[in-house]
């Protein structure tokens, strides 16, 4: 078969050169030299129960609808020849089938119509997968690419994360479907221009932090000499998956399955990633993640993503946006049914990845809370002891630390230590862990309060015993007097642990903002996280109250006044 394929190619290349058959309105020839070595295992076992597949093999050519107005995916080069990533995919399909490739130029307006009337076999034309389109055509899973949104910025832009842009002015163009959604998910202040050109000039003149647009279009802009040095440093978000389309009548046919298997193979072999690089597109997370997912193996070594008896891919391998509750079971079914019936998008229930991230965020928050409580008690006790030390210098240091701890916002302390001091330490090759920096600063801040409470309690003792000193061995005498204020301080530190999210510690709040930025379920996630934190704090109040009661049993409880 590969010999036959090679012959076809040679014949075609010859034809091209001899006849000068270049872009001629609708019909085009295959690009010369566009051959890659990729496993073609699927071609060996082609079931023949597809009318279309039979037709393709009878006529000896595959007719693919591709674009010529979308640079890098389907555009024209300087010589006016059609080329692009999708043209490469079309060529590989023909190669695998061992037939000639005939390319037909389609547009966004007519691509599905061409399929319906049967004048093309396959459409690979930047077609985003939607439920509506699935009704008029068969869209192949898995998806071969996903377009998303990114930010075009000046060469000197300091922006590194989407969250850096909260509250900032960002340029956008009128009518883009993602404008509203991006403003909602990332709290952007959008400045809307009529034309992409105006928006790009606004970026150049520093009127906004960057230009928000489709990443495939930005990738094309960045290749223009005019924008040399300009960058798109942010990860592509709001990914809209692109699907290869065939006729509605071919749903579930051998052709449908063969195309799906081929796209899966493109992901597994790294072919798509390699083509993305070759066309100078920014590395998309979609391709990286999909390759990782489709390369996963089960315990017995077989791939995880294998078609079931019904010919469907397992739900775990599919984009959950296109999975219905009828196709799955368990938690996933429950979560999807909720989404279908009420519109409540609980992705942390039905999506295994979100579920895992949310769970680990919760554990991280619990760990932070425990560490901060222990840290505050330690700092408070140590501070109180130092404050009563024999040496006046030590006493002054403790007093100064107390004022500094109480009078600077903990968030500022975190930045000062992690970035300010961290930059100095970095010169000696030391790196601070954001988790422990957050624990240290929150403990310092709350420890100051604990220290004051312990000292006030000691003051009471000193009325009867002037030599009374705070000491770990004499804790029992001080706990009943100080416990109320100490517990209040510890609850306060538990209410502040989520500040660690500001320095990218993956705790509950930070995981939540990531999930809702990705899924768009802002309302659901915000409600969940608020209630969850409220419950956590209330449970802690209960728990600390119980512990306090245990410790001070018998001792008279002081009523808190003002």
């Amino acid at each position, binding site marked *: 078969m590969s010999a036959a394929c090679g012959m076809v190619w040679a014949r075609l290349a010859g034809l091209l050169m001899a006849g000068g058959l270049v872009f001629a309105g609708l019909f085009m020839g295959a690009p010369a030299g566009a051959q890659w070595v990729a496993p073609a295992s699927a071609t060996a076992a082609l079931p023949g129960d597809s009318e279309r597949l039979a037709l393709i093999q009878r006529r000896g050519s595959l007719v693919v609808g591709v674009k010529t107005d979308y640079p890098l995916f389907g555009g024209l080069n300087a010589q006016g020849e059609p080329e692009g990533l999708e043209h490469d995919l079309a060529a590989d399909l023909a190669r695998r089938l061992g037939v000639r490739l005939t390319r037909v130029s389609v547009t966004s307006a007519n691509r599905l119509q061409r399929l319906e009337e049967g004048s093309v076999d396959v459409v690979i034309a930047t077609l985003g997968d939607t439920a509506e389109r699935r009704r008029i055509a068969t869209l192949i899973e898995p998806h071969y690419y996903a377009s998303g949104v990114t930010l075009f910025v000046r060469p000197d832009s300091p922006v590194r994360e989407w969250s850096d842009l909260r509250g900032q002015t960002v340029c956008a163009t009128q009518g883009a479907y993602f404008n509203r959604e991006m403003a909602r998910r990332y709290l952007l202040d959008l400045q809307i221009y009529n034309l992409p050109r105006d928006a790009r000039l606004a970026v150049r003149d520093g009127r906004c932090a960057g230009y928000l647009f489709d990443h495939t279009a930005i990738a094309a802009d960045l290749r223009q000499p005019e924008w040399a040095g300009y960058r798109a440093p942010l990860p592509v978000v709001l990914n809209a998956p692109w699907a290869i389309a065939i006729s509605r009548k071919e749903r579930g046919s051998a052709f449908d399955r063969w195309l799906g298997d081929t796209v899966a193979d493109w992901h597994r072999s790294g072919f798509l990633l390699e083509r993305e690089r070759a066309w100078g597109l920014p590395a998309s997370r979609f391709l990286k993640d999909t390759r990782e997912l489709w390369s996963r193996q089960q315990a017995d070594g077989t791939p995880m993503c294998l078609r079931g008896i019904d010919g469907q891919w397992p739900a775990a391998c599919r984009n959950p946006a296109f999975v219905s509750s009828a196709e799955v079971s368990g938690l996933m079914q429950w979560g999807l049914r909720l989404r279908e019936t009420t519109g409540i998008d609980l992705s942390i229930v039905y999506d295994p990845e979100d579920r895992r991230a949310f769970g680990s965020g919760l554990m991280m928050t619990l760990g932070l809370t425990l560490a901060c409580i222990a840290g505050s008690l330690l700092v408070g006790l140590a501070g109180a002891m130092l404050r009563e030390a024999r040496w006046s210098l030590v006493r002054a240091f403790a007093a100064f630390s107390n004022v500094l701890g109480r009078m600077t916002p903990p968030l500022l302390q975190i930045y*000062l230590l992690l970035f*300010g001091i961290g930059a100095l330490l970095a010169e000696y090759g030391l790196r601070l862990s954001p988790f422990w920096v957050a624990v240290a600063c929150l403990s310092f801040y709350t420890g100051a309060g604990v220290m004051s409470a312990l000292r006030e309690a000691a003051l009471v003792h000193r009325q009867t015993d002037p030599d009374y000193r705070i000491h770990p061995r004499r804790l029992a005498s001080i706990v009943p007097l100080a416990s109320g204020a100490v517990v209040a301080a510890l609850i306060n530190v538990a209410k502040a642990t989520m500040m660690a999210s500001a320095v990218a510690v993956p705790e509950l709040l930070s995981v939540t903002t990531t999930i809702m930025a990705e899924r768009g379920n802002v309302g659901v996630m915000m409600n969940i996280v608020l209630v969850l934190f409220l419950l956590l704090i209330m449970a802690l109040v209960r728990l600390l109250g119980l512990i306090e009661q245990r410790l001070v049993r018998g001792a008279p409880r002081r009523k808190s006044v003002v």
Partner: protein
Amino acid sequence: MNLPEHQTLTESLIETLTWLPFLLEGFGLNLLISALAMLMGTLCGAVLAQARLSRPPTLRRAGHLLTELTRNVPTFVFLYYLAFMLPTEIRLPGGGEIWLIPGWVKAALALSIAVTGFCADNLSLALAAWREGDHGRALLIIPSWAGYGLIIVMASSTASVVGVPELLSRCNTVIAATGNTGMMLPVYALACAIFVLTCWPLIQVMDHLKRRMMDRYLRYPLATARGGRP
């Protein structure tokens, strides 16, 4: 942008000081946020305190429940909640007039929930004392309330995480604009100094006032203020 790789500390300090007016302007926003939060929180807290001291048991229970809630909501999470859930503009019904809700107002709203909890707890004690005729004890709420206001000023720096251009957020802007990592320490240290130098003397005054009032009005000693921080 064309700064040398390594600036001396003095050069960094001098450059930091040139940004002082810009940073102080941000601190003004911190004060504004705190003032609005204190105003709204005190009003809501007063309503809750009244409810808790009222006669109908349902109203009283509702007052206690709401106080419990406001005491336990972490304001940092609530700040995110409001930033993402409140619209940035509201159209008044009928008139079609559009009101913008700037980020700093959302931040003030978020912080006001902590103030509400604090005031509900302490005002109900003060009101009870006042009704018993113990006016001096009731007036003790004033220094505590002012002290709490300073805690809110510090908490207002959390508004930086949702992009409100207050002091901390402006520190980050300055560091990003100069593109010089050596600036981080002096800029953040300057912000610390602004907070300490503003809040510390005021706290001292409040503590002094409180002690004077306690000595004067109280018949027995009492514990330190207990109230949830933001």
